[in-house]
């Protein structure tokens, strides 16, 4: 059974025939892209003209996201920017504390159980002139139920008095830098850092399983994928216990599940030996729409949380250097065993010292275990300098840069964390490409919204939220950005032979667009409208999710 789709334009990402008018699909795979006359040679077919006025691109690939974004949408969104939920409703951005409180009050009024927790997410006070939300503010929402809002960065939580009471922290005499105190000696309700957030977080709905997405969360995450043109997305990362893997296998196997999910096993909490053994077991459970068997190693923290590991001269504001989340010995052991067992690793490094450590360990590991096609990928890798990109290139590494960070926190990096010069080289897409480092760009959803076309816009324009261009020389052009969100990202997952371009033999994974990203102009890339997706030949209109 062959279907030939006509389109206004098909962007193939196949340099041999970059554009086509028709694509033929059989059994969920691409027979070919070209003219109708060329494709008719495949035999009997049905001509489907539903996309005749649309632009078709290869299904977009998000190389660094977290399926937890699906779960978060069950909580109240209080971010500064407009953002679309899994059901297509656009929640307007809130530009002040009053707006945040109003939205929380609405949520409060809609809840039946007066004691149930009310969690909100994506608060970002840097857009409110850094005015902080206090316990007293949130008490205006409710004094009977615990209320808590997570900052967009994920590093800070603001709660009301009830939540503090439930955690036993509504008292004086506390002495922890993560718990600021008010005039009355009581906590202001702001909680900084994961260890401080956890004991209160569980009372406001941010519990232990939040990071591990649940069944509904995974279904909702997939809806967001369809709405943003994504057909393959990573879940980076999770502990992946058997129950979670069984659930994900079951859900992704459903006939109407629209996304290929690639979950990576988080390194924390097990020894290197156990990690390798677990991932080898996971590999056996891999399926068409659930690709298992990769590892994510977290090496340091975040730049805006001042927990990233920086080389000299460190943070611009003089903050002490950040934290290691793994010892060099363990990192080497994981890299060596993975090279030996042909396991694919992605490493999280934000600061340039963390990146340097990974490069050193890779250099050493590859001498012992030469591997021609390991494609180990540096994730975020926000501060790498040119010399480090040169090393990545020599070592055969890939990079997935956090292009969205520029827009959301670029001003903060410029003024506070790394200072002007290094802020301009952050997420150096042009340098990566100049040095032939295979490159992807990402959203890290839910930290920033899932949407590769928006991410491409960020990499092309390098605008900050205040409207400054930051790092003119690191801009890339539209073609390069579109490559990064398709074949570029697919390459970092070793899926480039299956997805990322529209050519014979590949999966019939398409992003169906209302506008042409190649002609709309780089400054408008983020405004390209997404109709929906085709995944393995199955059609998913966003309007019918």
């Amino acid at each position, binding site marked *: 059974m062959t279907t030939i789709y006509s389109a206004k334009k098909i962007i193939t990402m196949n340099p041999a025939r970059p554009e086509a008018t028709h694509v033929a699909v059989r059994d969920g795979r691409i027979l070919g892209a070209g003219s109708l006359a060329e494709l008719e040679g495949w035999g009997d077919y049905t001509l489907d003209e539903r996309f005749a006025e649309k632009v078709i691109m290869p299904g977009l690939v998000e190389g660094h996201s977290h399926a937890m974004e699906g779960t978060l949408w069950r909580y109240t969104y209080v971010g500064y920017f407009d953002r679309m939920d899994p059901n297509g409703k656009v929640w307007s951005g809130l530009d002040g504390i009053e707006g945040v409180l109003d939205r929380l009050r609405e949520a409060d009024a809609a809840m039946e159980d007066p004691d149930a927790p009310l969690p909100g997410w994506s608060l970002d006070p840097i857009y409110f002139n850094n005015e902080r939300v206090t316990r007293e503010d949130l008490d205006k929402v409710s004094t009977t139920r615990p209320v808590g809002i997570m900052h967009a960065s994920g590093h800070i939580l603001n709660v009301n008095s009830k939540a503090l009471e439930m955690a*036993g*922290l509504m008292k*004086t*005499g*506390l*002495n*922890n*830098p*993560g*718990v*600021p*105190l*008010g*005039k*009355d*000696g009581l906590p*202001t309700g702001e909680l900084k*850092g*994961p*260890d*401080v957030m*956890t*004991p209160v977080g*569980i009372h406001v709905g941010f519990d*232990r399983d939040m990071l591990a997405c649940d069944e509904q969360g995974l279904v909702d995450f997939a809806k967001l994928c369809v709405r943003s043109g994504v057909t393959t997305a990573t879940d980076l990362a999770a*502990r992946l216990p058997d129950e979670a893997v069984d659930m994900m296998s079951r859900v992704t196997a459903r006939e109407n599940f629209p996304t290929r999910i690639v979950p990576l096993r*988080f390194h*924390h*909490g*097990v*020894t290197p*030996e*156990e990690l390798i053994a677990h991932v080898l077991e996971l590999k056996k459970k891999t399926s068409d729409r659930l690709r298992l068997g990769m590892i994510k190693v977290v090496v340091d923290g975040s730049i805006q949380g*001042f*927990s990233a*590991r920086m080389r000299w001269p460190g*943070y611009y*504001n*003089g*903050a*002490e*250097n*950040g*934290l*290691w*989340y*793994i*010892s*060099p*010995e*363990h990192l080497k052991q994981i890299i060596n065993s993975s090279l030996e067992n042909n396991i694919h690793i992605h490493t999280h490094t934000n600061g340039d*010292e963390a990146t340097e*450590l990974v490069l050193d360990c890779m250099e050493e590991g590859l001498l012992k275990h030469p591997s021609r096609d390991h494609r180990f990928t540096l994730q975020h890798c926000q501060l790498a300098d040119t010399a480090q990109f040169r090393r990545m290139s020599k070592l055969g590494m890939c990079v997935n840069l956090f292009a969205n960070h520029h827009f959301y926190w670029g001003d903060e990096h410029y003024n506070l964390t790394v200072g002007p010069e290094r802020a301009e080289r952050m997420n150096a897409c042009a340098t990566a490409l100049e040095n032939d480092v295979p490159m992807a760009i990402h959203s890290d959803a839910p930290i920033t919204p899932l949407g590769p076309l928006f991410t491409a816009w960020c990499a092309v324009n390098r605008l900050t939220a205040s409207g400054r261009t930051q790092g003119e020389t690191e801009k890339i052009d539209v073609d390069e950005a579109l490559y990064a969100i398709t074949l570029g990202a697919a390459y970092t997952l070793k899926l480039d032979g299956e997805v990322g371009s529209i050519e014979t033999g590949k999966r019939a994974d398409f992003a169906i667009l209302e506008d042409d990203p190649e002609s709309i102009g780089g400054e408008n890339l983020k405004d390209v409208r997404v109709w929906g997706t085709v995944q393995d030949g199955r059609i998913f209109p966003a309007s019918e999710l």
Partner: protein
Amino acid sequence: MPVTVIGGYLGSGKTTLVNHLLRNADGRRLAILVNEFGELPIDADLIEADDGDVISLTGGCVCCSYGNDLMMALMDMAKMEPRPDHIILESSGVALPGAIAGSVSLLNDYSLDGILVLTDAETVQERANDKYMADTILRQLQDANIILLNKIDLISDDKKAALNDWLQEKTQSATIIHTQNSVVPIEIALQSFEHDGGFSADRSTHSTSQFETKFFALNNSIDVKALAEELAEVPEIVRAKGFVQNEDGVLKTLQLVGQRFEITPAPNEVEAGIVVIGMKPLPELKTLAATG
């Protein structure tokens, strides 16, 4: 429940110490929290039952792993029946024990007794010069109440003295104990150090990168209350403590936490001076600078 945090880099003897303490628990029901169940963290003959998440040990002791969520593991442990007598929290080789201690102190079921940091006499100085690990090692030393200079039998007497001096210089005020095979009396290892709710708990600030500490020697007298009110208005300041000569010439103790402060008579034989701890960058504190 009292908690002792055990820190130190890989290979410094943490596992050996934990096993030594278990063998000498002497009726204490110890609960051991480890980052991960490695190549067993506990000697086989001490294990009674292993049901995955919790390993039951002889003498009513237990061992659990906390993976990437220490706070959750502690909250779970608080529900354990019967309650352990003492929690020993083994931090990972790259963790900063002071930061862990600061977190533990937020949980109502727990109180921090002390921080013990192990060092490998043969390698500690080398590690403290390591390209990547140097500052982590030094911050671990600064966090300690007790430092075990372990594997002391492996170095010469000359080196011992020099190493001891070097350690003394690197730590704040820790007691340094020379050990072989992590052997230390349990009463010493698990002793309680005074945490007056005041300064000692500020060791957590040594470990958090967003804070800085400034010291001002105050040579001139000043209106202490006015100074306190001024400091309380600086949002970056988290804490301040010191001795200030009041306008009337009397030395006072000033303690400030957030926007609250307390002024009390100063003890005898202390010198004027104040330590200010706050978010980086601390703004210029003109009054203090002028007084010093």
